[in-house]
């Protein structure tokens, strides 16, 4: 017990001067503890380090009660210190009770952990949980009756994890497998549909990126193929449709371009870009009036389409010109 334990604690001179049969060290200890009871953790009350083990708690408790139980002072005058002693005794007992049960001790340790310990504990908790899961999965695989249920649970879990990680293709795959094992599960069916939709969108996105890359390298046929594949994965991918239209025109296949553009408009009639794509095809085919209508429609739906605005201006000028 170091001297600076009482640092910052103000002792009442009247308390220290009270006429009782206790030496000054004991008085200071009692006054300090009584005044700090609420603030100290279970371990601190017992004079122990954070998360000290149960055996240390028990040993410290035995030492403390010998000091703080009023029965230990037969025939001594204790004055106001008797009540303080009882309060400290109760607090010490509460600390012991709180720390002697393993589950309660663990919960309390977490609650009172210093920051760096807290992080370490969290990490360990996650690790423990993972181990438990693994063990459960292994056990269920070994049991044929449980295997099916276990497999479903495992697939769903993996699927959900993949979803969260953004690997939608993987998720859709796992979940679809799970659905195959448990076809009645409505929740699972919903998950599968969701995963599939997201997986398709993701795939389309990837293919679209690929198309853009090909376009940048001037490889129009490759770009067209990528855009088409993207649209196949996600027919609602308007940007792929309009880019595809442009690529088809570059390649010199207006039929394909028109097809793509119309498909885009059908899929997303409210998307300005789809109408713009269709306008490009119409313009290329010479149907300027129709092209102009489509561009106006595009701008009406999406006023921010600067490329469509430019095109419309050009078309207007060509009329004037």
């Amino acid at each position: 017990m170091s001297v600076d334990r009482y640092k910052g604690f103000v002792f009442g001179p009247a308390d220290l001067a009270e006429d009782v049969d206790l030496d000054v060290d004991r008085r200071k200890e009692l006054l300090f503890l009584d005044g700090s009871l609420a603030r100290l953790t279970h371990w601190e009350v017992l004079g122990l380090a954070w998360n000290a083990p149960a055996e240390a708690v028990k040993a410290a408790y035995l030492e403390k009660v010998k000091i703080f139980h009023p029965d230990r002072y037969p025939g001594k005058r204790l004055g106001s210190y008797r009540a303080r002693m009882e309060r400290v005794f109760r607090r010490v007992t509460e600390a012991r009770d709180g720390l002697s049960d393993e589950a309660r001790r663990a919960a309390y340790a977490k609650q009172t952990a210093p920051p760096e310990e807290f992080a370490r504990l969290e990490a360990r908790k996650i690790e423990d949980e993972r181990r438990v899961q693994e063990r459960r999965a292994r056990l269920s695989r070994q049991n044929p009756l449980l295997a099916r249920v276990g497999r479903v649970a495992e697939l769903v879990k993996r699927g959900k994890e993949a979803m969260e990680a953004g690997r939608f293709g993987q998720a859709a795959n796992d979940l679809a497998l799970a659905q195959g094992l448990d076809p009645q599960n409505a929740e699972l069916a919903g998950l599968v549909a969701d995963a599939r939709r997201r997986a398709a969108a993701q795939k389309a996105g990837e293919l679209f990126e690929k198309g853009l890359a090909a376009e940048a390298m001037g490889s129009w046929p490759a770009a067209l193929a990528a855009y088409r594949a993207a649209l196949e994965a996600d027919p609602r991918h308007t940007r792929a449709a309009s880019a595809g239209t442009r690529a088809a025109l570059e390649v010199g296949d207006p039929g394909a371009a028109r097809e793509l553009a119309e498909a885009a408009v059908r899929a997303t009639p409210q998307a300005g870009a789809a109408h713009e794509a269709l306008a490009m095809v119409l313009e290329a085919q010479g149907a300027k009036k129709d092209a102009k209508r489509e561009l106006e429609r595009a701008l009406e739906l999406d006023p921010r389409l600067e490329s469509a605005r430019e095109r419309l201006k050009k078309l207007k000028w060509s009329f004037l010109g």
Partner: protein
Amino acid sequence: MSEHEPVIGIDLGTTNSVVATVRDGVPRVISNRSGQLLTPSIVAVAKNGKRLVGALAKRQAITNAENTVFAAKRLIGRRWGSKEVEDARRVLPYKLLAGPEGNDVRVEIAGRVVTIQEISAMILAELRADAEAWFGRPVTKAVITVPAYFNDGQRHATKDAGRIAGLEVLRIINEPTSAALAYGFGKQVERKVVVFDLGGGTFDVSILDIGKSVYDVVGVGGDTYLGGEDFDRRVMDWLTFGFAKENSGVDLRQDKMALQRLKDASEKAKCELSAVPGTSIHLPFLVGAADGKGALHLDRQLTRDKLEDLTKDLVERCIAVTERTLKDAGVRPNQVGEVLLVGGMTRMPRVQKAVKDFFAREPCRGVHPEEVVALGAAIQAHALSAPQAQGSEVLLLDVTPQNLGLMVVGGYFQTVIPKNTTVPTSQTHLFTTVQDNQTSVRIAVLQGASERAIDNELLGEFILDGIRPARRGEVEIEVTFDISADGIVGVSARDVATGQQQSITVTATSGLTEDEIKRILDEQIDDLLERKQTNREFEARRDRVLAMVREIEALGPAVQEALERTKFGKDAVQKAESVLARVRQAAEAGDAAAIAAEEEQLDRTLQLFKGLASAARPAGGK
């Protein structure tokens, strides 16, 4: 306060009581004035009006069953109308009455109605007197033991009994804890100990964690209505039933004297069967025959097997209680480092075997089952009265035996301090009003294990008023429960907003009020003065009579001489001798009535002798 003032520990048992002390650092039992270590917990008023306690009371119990009170411990602190009291009324030969408030139990003994506390106080006073005789100086401080399962009311009543007996009760401690204290005293014990205490009337089991001279109770359980007397009753019932079968339906229970003899014989047989495999119960002239001619005798053989068969379920109950107690305390039987057997009933081989089987270990044989509790009480008394020497210090940390709480809306019981909480302790709970503009709240304090308030023991109730009117649920009332190291409960309630506060020490509804105790103590003083008066009369008479005896003895040779020369008076001398013998005996026994009865006869003998001697002298002179 003198450090040398003697202090005692008292095991106030259902059937027997023991007093002990610590002298020169060694705990030891104090033998009573008859030289016995055990004093029967029996109080009686003899036919001649004399109050008898202990062995003297037990000896005359058969002929004076109505005025002999035994097993008062089963009634102390109980409420009139409770199941326990109703059961007792059916089987006890003495008369029970309700107190003036209809709450507590009183006994009618020799036409006087006394409280159970007073009965217990008489036993305590007897033990105190024994201790004073042993020390040769006054004794005023004691620790008294009670079964761990005693509730607040029973503890209070026991403490009051101590006060009535003129003792300052330093502490009420639990019997099993006390036994463990005696077991561990002076040894370096570091282990979990289970105390299995099957006494005359109660069964207690306690689990202690002993380490570094700290006796930390971690769990208690028990049954206040399971003990040696229940075993006796099984034997009695068996005998009564068999007797009725053999004698065309004669019911022995109708005859109080027969019942008392039966009870003694049953207890004796049960004790014998702990040592031998079979015994016979022989009670001649037990009751008059139904046809009015002659008397019926009882003669039966009882084997140990039969006894075990009769009491099988009682032993099973003990084990079930033990199992539950261990479970509540979170201790497995294999974690227990020692099992102490306490109480006379643990001498029964079947009980020992059941304990051994349950714990899978031999119970400790190092303690004397009947003395160990008193020894522990003496150790605690010693520890509480003087600073202890290094190494022999002890510290007891006991627990509450039952949940303590309040009655809440719907008649439910809300626990505030759960059982097995280390005392002293205190807990605060917030409660709220249940009605709009409620200005007072009734707080009923209960102890027990049931969720329903009505099934628990009501310790007391009080009313907190002056609550500010407000919508229901808006006023918060803070109720603080406090249990002292004695296990005695204090409660205070405070309106959080107004600070209005009320606190009570919960006196059980079946307890004595302060006034009653004062009245009893006053009566005792009157009694004492009266007894002093009669004592003085008795002493004067005794001295007078003894003077006459001496005179007669002095005349003896002269009378002898006179008579030798006549043929008459041989029978007169014989008569005189027998009178003298009776008087000497009566004087020795202090029997005032007998002395008074002989005084006249003695006077006549003296006159006769004087006459003879004076007649003989002239003749002798020839």
